[in-house]
């Protein structure tokens, strides 16, 4: 923000709101990191701890709602300030959703640690790192009021979609090869879907931040990867396999 308000306490309140957003975002980012680590290391303890961490994010969302309502009522914000406060409200609900998805990933990590390992699980950390990076960048864009950075995150959503689509095909192939894979592969599929949804919410935050900074919306439609909902993978060749 360029210059300061004549009323200093107004600045203090806006800064506090923005700090709460960052705290909440940082928490969601680390929840996601832990959940993915729990999958990679097959660690049910870590997974359970992550699930138990989710209510902290919900509490911060309530705190942000409260601060925003108070600012709207008492400061009657205008222009950039108004966009900032609306952005904080929308971003906090996006982060809250991200927290829920991370918790869901963690729950599945518990189940996955109890079933035999399947190879596609290796792709999950790669997808997770990409999305974590996006969350970090989007939070930086928020703090710095950097519209270009937000736009760059927004443009990266298709990378997540691409990984998700290829993982989706890979998992289907595994399931068709051996029905015993169906259980763990289905869990992995949901995990991948959750991470993909986290990517969507992050992209959404990027749009909100872009509007917050510029007052304009990102009009062009986001570059979309292939949609996995329409994928029809070929069944594997049954030439001399174990024919089950």
């Amino acid at each position, binding site marked *: 923000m*360029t*210059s*300061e*308000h*004549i*009323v200093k306490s*107004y600045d203090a309140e806006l800064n506090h709101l923005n700090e709460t957003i960052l705290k909440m975002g940082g928490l969601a980012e680390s929840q996601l990191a832990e959940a993915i680590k729990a999958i990679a290391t097959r660690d049910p303890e870590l997974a359970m701890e992550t699930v138990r961490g989710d209510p902290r994010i919900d509490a911060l969302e309530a705190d942000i709602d409260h601060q925003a309502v108070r600012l709207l009522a008492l400061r*009657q*914000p*205008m*222009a*950039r*300030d*108004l*966009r900032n406060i609306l952005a904080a409200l929308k971003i906090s609900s996006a982060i809250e959703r991200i927290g829920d998805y991370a918790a869901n990933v963690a729950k599945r990590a518990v189940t996955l640690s109890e079933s035999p390992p399947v190879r596609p699980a290796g792709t999950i950390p790669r997808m997770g790192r990409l999305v974590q990076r996006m969350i970090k960048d989007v939070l930086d864009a928020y703090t710095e009021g950097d519209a270009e950075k937000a736009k760059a995150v927004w443009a990266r959503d298709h990378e997540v979609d691409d990984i998700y689509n290829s993982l989706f095909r890979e998992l289907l192939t595994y399931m068709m090869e051996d029905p015993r894979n169906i259980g763990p592969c289905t869990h992995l599929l949901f995990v991948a879907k959750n991470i993909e949804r986290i990517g969507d919410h992050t992209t959404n935050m990027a749009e909100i931040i872009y509007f917050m900074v*510029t*007052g*304009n919306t990102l009009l062009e439609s986001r570059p979309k990867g292939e949609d996995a909902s329409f994928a029809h993978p070929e069944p594997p060749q049954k030439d001399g396999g174990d024919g089950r």
Partner: protein
Amino acid sequence: MLDTMTATATGISNAILRAKNLDVFYGEKQALFSVGIDIPEREITALIGPSGCGKSTFLRCLNRMNDTIPSCTIRGTVEIGGHDIYARDVDVVELRRRVGMVFQKPNPFPKSIYDNVAYGPRIHGLAADKGELDEIVYSCLERTGLLGEVRDRLDAPGTSLSGGQQQRLCIARAIAVSPEVILMDEPCSALDPIATARVEELMEELRRNYTIVIVTHNMQQAARVSQHTAFFHLGTLVEWGATEQIFTSPSDERTQGYITGRYG
């Protein structure tokens, strides 16, 4: 910025008033610099900006109230319905009938409530007889929401009313001569929130038949009542456009700083 026009942009289709290259001087000192703006018909335009930026000066140009200030000189044009109001043959009394004014401090004449409203129609000869005059007075008091409050004391002095009632009386007086435009210079700054809300509601009602230009220091009021907002700064018109646009995403940093309460 689709809906924001810069001070130099030309033309909206439903302009009733149009100022072009308007310079105003008080003696040697220039108070307005090349102001150009269209005032759309039957809509409310709010003029905002820091104290001393020239809002009242601009407002007074719209019905030649500045003629009464000897040191004041004007360059440029102001058109109403396409005719320059500063042209030689303009009848200033008739112009001020068409473009009425309501001031910051309610200023009822030292006359009865009835005569305050009847004054204009009488001098402009708008009523053929007492019956017609009554009709005008009653309907104007009715439209400003005063009739119910003053029906049984129309002979009482206008100054015996409360501040908010006096301001609505002044508005009734302004509309009694069937103007096209009503200029209001901070009409609510001396009123409490309830009286202010009544005047704002009245403005919304009047907008069906009249064009209103209001100067206000209250950003929320500008945002609440107007469809168009113009921001003045140091004698220049910085930015004007749809109120929604100005208060959500102004294009000029000076506008942004002013409406969000920051140092310029």
